[in-house]
C-alpha cells in the first residue's frame, strides 16, 4: 500500500499505528469520515475525533471495531480479517495515536513526496543554465562569524558552488505564486488569501516581497522550480554569509552606498537593485529587507557545526534565521555576520488560531532571495529543503 511507504515515528507496542492502522483508516474510513465529511458525525482524521468511537483498551466497546467486525462498515466489502484483527489489537493495546498526527496531513505528505520525485526527475533532465539574474558564487573557503556573542567562534567553512539571485525576490515575482490559479494536478501548495494588504502601502512593482513565512518562501522555491525546471531553494545561513562577504572581511565602509536602512530608507522598503552591488554582483544583501535562510537559529551552533556546507535543520517553528538587516534597522544590524532569529511576535496581527502558515504579518522588513546549487541534490534532499516540517506554530 502506497501510504505505508511513508513512516512516521514508530510507536511502541505490538501493532504499529503507522504501518498497520493508519493505512486502513486512510483508505477505508477517511473517504466518508474525513474532515469536511463526517458520515454519521464520525471522523477519523485526528485523535480527538477518532476517539469518539474508540474506547482505548476495550475493542468490544468500541464502535469502530464493532462496525468493521460485523461488516457493517465500510459499506460494500468487509475488511480483510488481518486488518480487523490489527484494529482490535491496537485498541486493546490502548489505541495509541501519534501526538498531533492528522491522517489527512500524513496523506498530503505522501502526495508531496511523489510530486517532489517527479520534479526531481524533471530538473535532472534539464541541462539549461540558470537565468542571468543569478550570479555564480564560486566554491571556496571563508571564515564565518566573528568573536561577538552568537557570531562566535569565527570558524572556517567550506561552501560548494551555487548560483544566487542578484536581487531580492520582488512582488512582481512573488504575487503570481500567491494569486495565480492552480496549473493542474502537480500543484505545489500555495498561500491562502491574505486578510490584509501585504505591501502595507509601500509599493508593489519592483519592490521586494515581504512578510512571508519561511515555509511560504520554501514553497515559492518549489513552485518556481516546477515552472522552470531549475532547482531553487533558500540559501543556508553559511551560504548567505559567504555570498554577503563576497571575498571581503565584512561590511562595506560606505554603507549608505550599498544599503537601505533606518537612516536612509524613509521608513519603508525601496525598489531592489538601486544601490551598489557587492563584489560578486549581489544587490541589497545588506538592508532593504532581511532575508530568510534555511537554518534553525541556535546561538551556539558555530561551536559544533560541520566544516563543509553546514545547515542546521529546523526542529522547532521558532527561531529560524534571517540575515542582512532591513530598512527598519540601524546600521549596527547591517553586517554580513549578524544573525536574527524569527519570533512568534512576527505573527501577532493574525487574530486566528491556528495562525497562518503563510504570513508573518508583523515582519514588514522580511523577504528572501533564492539560490540554485550547481550540484543537483537527490529527491529526498529536495523534499527536505522545501518542507521544513515546522510550518505550524503549534
Amino acid at each position, binding site marked *: 500500500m502506497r501510504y505505508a511507504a511513508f513512516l512516521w515515528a514508530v510507536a511502541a507496542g505490538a501493532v504499529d499505528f503507522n504501518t498497520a492502522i493508519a493505512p486502513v483508516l486512510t483508505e477505508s474510513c477517511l473517504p466518508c469520515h474525513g*474532515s*469536511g*465529511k*463526517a458520515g454519521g*458525525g464520525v*471522523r477519523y482524521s*485526528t*485523535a*480527538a*475525533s477518532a476517539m469518539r468511537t474508540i474506547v482505548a483498551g476495550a475493542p468490544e466497546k468500541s464502535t469502530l471495531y464493532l462496525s468493521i467486525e460485523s461488516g457493517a462498515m465500510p459499506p460494500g466489502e468487509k475488511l480483510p480479517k488481518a486488518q480487523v484483527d490489527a484494529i482490535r489489537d491496537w485498541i486493546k493495546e490502548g489505541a495509541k495515536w501519534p501526538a*498531533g498526527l492528522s491522517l489527512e496531513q500524513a496523506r498530503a505528505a505522501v502526495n508531496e513526496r511523489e510530486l517532489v520525485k517527479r520534479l526531481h526527475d524533471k530538473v535532472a533532465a534539464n541541462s539549461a543554465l540558470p537565468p542571468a539574474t543569478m550570479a555564480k558564487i564560486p566554491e571556496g573557503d571563508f571564515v564565518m562569524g566573528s568573536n561577538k556573542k552568537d557570531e562566535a567562534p569565527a570558524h572556517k567553512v567550506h561552501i560548494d558552488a551555487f548560483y544566487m539571485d542578484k536581487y531580492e525576490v520582488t512582488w512582481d515575482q512573488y504575487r503570481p505564486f500567491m*494569486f495565480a490559479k492552480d496549473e493542474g494536478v502537480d500543484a505545489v501548495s500555495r498561500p491562502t*488569501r*491574505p*486578510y*490584509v*494588504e*501585504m*505591501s*502595507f*502601502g*509601500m509599493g508593489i512593482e519592483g519592490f521586494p516581497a515581504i512578510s512571508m513565512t519561511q515555509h511560504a518562501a520554501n514553497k515559492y522555491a518549489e513552485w518556481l522550480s516546477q515552472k522552470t525546471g531549475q532547482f531553487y531553494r533558500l540559501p543556508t545561513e553559511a551560504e548567505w554569509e559567504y555570498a554577503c562577504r563576497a571575498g571581503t572581511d565584512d561590511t562595506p565602509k560606505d554603507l549608505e552606498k550599498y544599503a537601505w536602512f533606518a537612516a536612509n530608507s524613509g*521608513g*519603508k522598503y525601496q525598489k531592489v537593485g538601486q544601490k551598489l552591488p557587492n563584489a560578486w554582483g549581489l544587490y541589497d544583501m545588506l538592508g532593504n529587507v532581511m532575508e530568510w535562510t534555511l537554518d534553525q537559529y541556535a546561538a551556539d551552533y558555530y561551536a559544533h557545526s560541520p566544516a563543509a556546507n553546514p545547515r542546521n535543520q529546523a526542529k522547532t517553528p521558532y527561531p529560524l534565521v534571517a540575515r542582512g538587516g532591513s530598512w*527598519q534597522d540601524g546600521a549596527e544590524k547591517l553586517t554580513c555576520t549578524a544573525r536574527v532569529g524569527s519570533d512568534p*511576535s512576527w505573527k*501577532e*496581527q*493574525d*487574530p*486566528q*488560531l*491556528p*495562525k497562518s502558515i503563510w504570513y508573518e504579518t*508583523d515582519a*514588514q522588513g522580511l523577504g528572501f532571495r533564492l539560490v540554485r546549487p550547481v550540484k543537483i541534490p537527490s529527491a529526498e534532499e529536495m523534499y527536505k529543503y522545501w518542507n521544513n516540517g515546522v510550518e505550524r506554530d*503549534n
Partner: protein
Amino acid sequence: MEDNRRDFLKTAGAAALAFPALIRAEQATNAIKVGLVGCGGRGTGAAAQAMKADDFAELTAVADISQERIDTCLDQLLKTSGQKVKVEAKNIFLGLDAYQKVIDSGVDVVILATPPGFRPAHLRACIEAGKHVFCEKPIAVDAFGVRDVLETAKLAKAKNLNLVSGFCWRYSNYIVATFDQIKAGAIGDIVAYYATYYTSPVKPMPPASARPAGMSDVQWQIANWYNFQWLCADSLVEQAVHSADKIAWSQGDKPPLSCTAVGGRQIPAEGGNIFDHFEVNYLYPNGVRAFLGSRQIEGCWNENADYIMGTKGVCTIGRSPMPKITGQTEWTYTGTKYDMYQYEHDMLFQAIRKGQTINNGERMATSTLLAMMGRMAAYTGREITWDMALNSQERIFPEKLDWNGSLPVPPLPRPGITKFL
C-alpha cells in the same frame, strides 16, 4: 455615557499599555471559567488569548454547529493553552441553541465569535444571565439587532457586567497614540476622512454543485455564512466596519447627519446576496466629510488605509507600517507595537479581577450602524440619515430559524428599485 475606551487607555499611559498589569496567581481567589460560542479560527484565537490573559482563566464549555470545528478548535487549544482547557464532554454543545447551554453551564465569561447575525440574541442571553462578554464585531446585521444590542448594553451597565468588543483598533497602542495626536490638535480640525478597505474576496461562495445532498438551506448558508446578508451583514459591515469604527473614533463617536453611497456586485454571487464593492460618503456637522471605500475583488489595487485631513496637516495610517502625520506637525509612531488582540482580553480579565467595568456596548452598536447606514444607502440608492438608519424596519435576520428548514435567499439589492424600510 459609557466608559470611553480611548480616554481610559490615554490615562493608563504608555508603560501600562506596553506591559498590562496582569493579575497574578497570588492575587487570584478562584478560576474564571470561559465559554466559547463559535469555534472557528477567530473564536479559537480569542479563547487562547482569554486563557493567556489570566493565570486562572480556563475554558470549560464550547458551542458550535459543527462537531468537526469543535474538534479542531480543542485540538488547537490543547497545544496552545494546555491544562487550561477543561472542557468536559458534557460541556460540548452542538446546534443553534448551543450558546444557551454554554451560558447555563456555569461559566463566568462568554466569548461570542459566531457569524454576526446571531450576535444580538447571544449577547442578550449572556447579559441577562449575568455573564461578562467578549463580543466580536460587527454586532448585528440589521437595525433591529443594533437596537437590541443598545438595550442590552444598558442592561450590562446596570448589572455592572464587562462587555468588551472586538473593535480591536481601540485596543491597539500605536493607533491609540495616533488618535491621541489628532485629538491634541496635530492636524488641526478634521475636515475630511478617507478610508480604504480594498481586499480580495474573504470567503467566496462555492459552486452550488458542492452542496451535499440533504443539506438544508439554513445549514448550507451558515456553512458559507460570509455570502449572505442575514449572517454576515455584507462585506462593508463585516470587514470595512473597522474603518467605520475609526471614522467614528475621529468624530468622538458622534453620529453623522447622513450618507449617500454606491455599491454593487461585479463577480458572480453564486447564490449569495452580498455586494463586493461600496463607496460611502458621510456628512458630519460643519460640513465635515468622511469617505469609506470597500472592495472584495481579486486582481485589483489592494489597500487598507486611513487618510485623515485636517486644517493643519494630514494623518496617514496604513500606507507605511507606522502611522504618520505631515504638515505643521511632523510625527511618526516610533514605539513598538503590541498585540491588540491579546490586550483586549488582558483588559477584560483585569477588569473582572479588580471589580471594574468596561462597557464598549453602545460604541460597538453605533460603529456597526455607521457601516450599516452606508449599506442601506448603497442598497436603496437613497440618502440615509442617522435617524432613518437607527429606526429602520428592515428585518434581515430571520425571526424564526429552523436548522433543517428552507430559507429562500432574497435577490441582490438594486439601487433605485430596492425600497428603504
